[in-house]
């Protein structure tokens, strides 16, 4: 078993997004609305696996406000701030490159800032947490 800890930040604007967490083997956390603020989820998982996070609850036509220059003024979003494997955080700089969102309209976005409904996948297809850490850090190499 590998201890996985996710720290998420949910930003409330016209309400919050929801998320559910699962792997191919098991449901880890049923759909939950993430209220404004930080949330920590601790799971025991079996490697190798892919962790999926189904995110929902955003209407992009009204839950994001931008100015004339395209700067975001208000937004409903979830941000993955920290992922720990066996109590060690993944490298901060690797984190944005590690989170892949496939939106409901099939666009792929690689970022830890989740601003669309869709499926976030975290590829943990490694034999153990040590190999996972080293492999994920290689994203920076």
């Amino acid at each position, binding site marked *: 078993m590998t201890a996985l800890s996710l720290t998420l930040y949910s930003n409330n604007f016209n309400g919050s997004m929801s998320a559910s967490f699962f792997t191919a083997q098991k449901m880890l956390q049923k759909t939950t609305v993430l209220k404004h603020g930080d949330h920590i989820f601790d799971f025991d998982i079996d490697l190798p696996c892919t962790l999926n996070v189904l995110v929902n609850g955003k209407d992009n036509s009204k839950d994001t406000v931008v100015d004339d220059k395209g700067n975001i003024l208000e937004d409903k979003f979830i941000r993955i701030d920290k992922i720990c494997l066996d109590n060690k955080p993944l490298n901060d700089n690797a984190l944005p490159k590690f989170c892949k969102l496939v939106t409901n309209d099939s666009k792929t976005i690689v970022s830890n800032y989740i601003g669309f409904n869709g499926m976030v996948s975290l590829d943990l297809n490694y034999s153990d947490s040590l*190999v996972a850490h*080293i492999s994920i850090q290689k994203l920076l*190499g």
Partner: protein
Amino acid sequence: MKLVITSIPWTDTESPLLAPALLKGQCVAKGIDTTAIDLNQEVIHFVKNNFSTRYNEIQSAVIQNHRDSNPNEIRSIIEFMAKRLSEYNPTHIALSLLTYGSQYICEWLCFYYKLHYPNVKIIIGGPGVFNTFGIEHGYADRLLEQKQIDYFVKGDGDELLSQIVSQENIDLPGVNRIDWQQPKTLNDQPYPMYDEYKWELYGNPSLGIVGSRGCVRKCSFCDVHEHWKKFQWRTGEDLFAELIYQNKNTGVRRFKFQDSLINGNQNEFMKLMRLLSDHNLKNPDNTIQWSSFFIFRPKKQMHDDDWRLISHSAVWLTVGVESLVDHVRMHMRKKFTNDDLDYCLSKCQQYGISVVMMLIVGYVTDSEDTHQETMQWFEKNKQYANNPIQHISFGGGLGILPGTELYRRQEELGIILNDVNFDNHWQSKDGKNTHKVRMRWMKEQREAAVKAGFNEQSLIGSHLLMEMKMK
């Protein structure tokens, strides 16, 4: 309680690393059951045996995060290290990082060890913990915050390590904080204990020895005196006793001083030279020899007879000459002239003492004129090529470190810095001394040196060649 101390790879050497043995001596004297091993050398052999055709590639992967590295291979090295440590059922492990190049593998060893042996306390220390230049401690703080280690030690761990192991929750200068205190004395300390090192692994069984801490000079570009506020030295008799002890116990006859300079205290140094000279004359089949960093002094301070005595045991002197122009060297506060340099080199030549000459290209008072003067020096002094000057090491051009006089006086000296940690890209306000200019000077000086018959080598290359000579 059981403490296991080890070096952490990668230090490219065929010699035993000093720190684990030194710390073991201290801890055993305090009654702590201690084992000291040199995993640096064991890992080097593990890699040679298991990845022989890809040695350089694996070495690189052990030193740093690498896009092309194979995580399973790194894992096999970490497993090997963890298995070796766990053989002794330790309650504490102390990991010695000699250079920055040990940080990457150390981080993953700590992770693996904490995962599998969560009750074992992990202590890290050594210059490699505190980045290349000894200022920042972000690496140690991060591992501490992540609970991957229990303690980090700054400065001399000699006394602190035994206190960490024998007490819980200690609050001492140098333990989990950057401020630290120098020990009161270096004399009469327990000797390093190498008894559990795997001696069959060493191609060059020469031993490290500590004769002093700090430096007697306060060179404008150097931060040694920031870390060791006081220059401390061991007496000639104390050093000689350790050399003889190690020679009797290990059979080793070659020693490498780990000091900033061996001859900071000229009286004690010459005492040691006399003792070694006597020993070597009486024991021609078991002579003791040494290599070290060394300072050239004004010729009135080093007489012909001194050089003769030095030659009876010295193999290799690494000398920070730093500039070949008098006024530049004086600004650096090196305190010897070109006349003194000529005298020292001629004496080394006369008595067959090998020298590596270190130079700094593009000091803050260097100019196109001093650059020309430097190139002329090589031609005018080519009689010293190969004897005594084995190599010239040009370094990477002047870098400006925090804690140095140059850093403190940057405004007055007209220096513009771009990086607060270590600035290799500083420039003069008039734009005449820039990184680009320094690189050109270096290229031209190297070419001039080689044209005059000198060998040019990096400091690491010089070190490896010195090791070959020490065999």
